[in-house]
């Protein structure tokens, strides 16, 4: 492990943690513009985080240690993911710690903890949210794995670094399997990040909420950490999508000359991804909760088809 690579790793982790709320703000602003509303400031998520961090935490009387412990685990998981995914540089020292399968596992750990914490208080809403989260998660997780296997088949490796390198430096070829995987990935992203067709992050309507129901009992710094973690999660998902489907311009770790360009490319791609996400959210309607399994099953099916197609086209 070189010092340059290590510095690069540190830089990226800080960058992701600090930039994640900005991406959230950008998506919210785009959505407001598309809905003909005046947009909140791009810095609004930072203001919310600051306000929450200054408040005193209120805990339910029967909250156990798990309830207080969970926000830190969730934040830690998401930050770890942010350290593994190549955002501006590939071949990060941390990337060796986890391949894409472990990455899915890290997401699963966060999901388990947030669901346990939601059930810990014993309110109806928390349990309801946890059950819905598990319903969606249990179906989205295999879909995400299969999507990653699509890349693994092409690059012969489950390590994100190798995947990015193979895809960024290949000669031009049309991969039908990747097109299928891309559509499936967008669907999983929407389901996992509680975006509009699956869940509406802007409301607390008890019939439909999933993510908001999970964190209803949290306040102050705990809530701040969870909100921040979900911003990082959205950022990490966008970064994974970019790294897999549009990996051009990602620098090698330790290559400081290529870094400015890589940062510019990453910012541009994230802005496009955020605007695209906001557009998708603006044009689609929130679906019934019982339609969600069908939605995620479709993502799974698409990813599976991609996998099968890559076998057929090999002969």
């Amino acid at each position, binding site marked *: 492990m070189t010092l340059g690579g290590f510095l690069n790793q540190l830089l990226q982790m800080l960058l992701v943690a600090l930039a994640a709320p900005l991406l959230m703000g950008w998506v919210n602003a785009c959505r407001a513009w598309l809905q003909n509303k005046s947009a909140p400031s791009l810095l609004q998520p930072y203001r919310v985080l600051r306000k929450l961090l200054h408040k005193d935490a209120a805990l339910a009387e029967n909250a156990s240690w798990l309830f207080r412990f969970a926000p830190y685990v969730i934040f830690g998981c998401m930050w770890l993911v942010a350290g593994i995914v190549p955002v501006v540089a590939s071949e990060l020292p941390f990337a060796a710690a986890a391949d894409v399968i472990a990455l899915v596992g890290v997401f699963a750990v966060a999901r388990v903890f947030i669901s346990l914490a939601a059930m810990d208080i014993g309110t109806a809403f928390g349990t309801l949210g946890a059950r819905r989260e598990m319903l969606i998660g249990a179906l989205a997780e295999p879909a995400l794995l299969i999507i990653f296997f699509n890349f693994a088949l092409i690059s012969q490796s489950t390590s994100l670094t190798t995947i990015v390198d193979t895809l960024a430096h290949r000669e031009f070829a049309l991969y039908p399997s990747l097109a*299928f995987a891309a559509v499936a990935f967008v669907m999983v992203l929407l389901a996992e990040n509680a975006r509009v067709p699956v869940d509406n992050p802007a409301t607390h309507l008890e019939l439909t909420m999933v993510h908001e129901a999970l964190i209803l009992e949290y306040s102050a710094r705990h809530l701040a950490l969870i909100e921040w973690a979900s911003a990082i999660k959205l950022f990490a998902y966008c970064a994974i999508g970019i790294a897999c489907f549009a990996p051009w311009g990602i620098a090698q770790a330790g290559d400081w000359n290529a870094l400015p360009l890589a940062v510019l490319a990453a910012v541009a791609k994230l802005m496009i991804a955020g605007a695209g996400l906001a557009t998708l959210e603006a044009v689609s309607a929130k679906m019934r909760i019982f339609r969600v*399994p069908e939605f995620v099953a479709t993502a799974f099916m698409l990813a*599976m088809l991609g996998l*099968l197609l890559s*076998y057929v*086209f090999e002969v």
Partner: protein
Amino acid sequence: MPLSGQLINVLAAVMLLIAFAMLSQRRILSLIELFAWQGVVLAASTFIVAYTTGQGHLYISGVLTVALKVVALPWILFRLIHRLNIRWDVETLINIPTTMLIGIALVIFAFNLAQPISQMASTITRSTLGIAMACVLLSFLMMMTRRKAVPVVIGFLAMENGLFFAATSATYGMPMVVEFGIALDVLVGGFIFGIFFFQVRETFDSLDTRHMEKLRED
């Protein structure tokens, strides 16, 4: 692999995707639109094969596909459902996620079945044979899982799309005489099904195919 081969592969993948979309579609109008799109993709792929291999007669069958499956049949079907005034959602016998899982199993079966043929073939379209067979099987599954007569007929027509695609990918199309014959059959079939729908509704007051079980002679 040359670009045309890759394009054919992509179009084949889109064919399969549309077959799955039809399998999971609940609305009759969207089902007909999907059928028309499948025709467009089929025609595009036929034209590319014709251009790459220099098989002139494939141009004719491509034009036939556009005329019949993109324009004529969807138009007839649109007219029919307006006349019959059926806009309601399609009912399926098995729920849609299960249907899709069965569909994936069928795709695996078809791919396995076609693999030995694909390995021996030297045509540019050899890898799409499995997809064509999967399309046929998926349309068949759609015919079985739908209750109403109109989706069943659309499934039948989509199956013909799959067969045509299989012929293109295995042997660069069928002889012209056969192709014309099939085209005529499908067109006449479309008209006959139209009359058939009205008869079914006259007799049973519904287009539900389950009622036809009453026709049994005990």
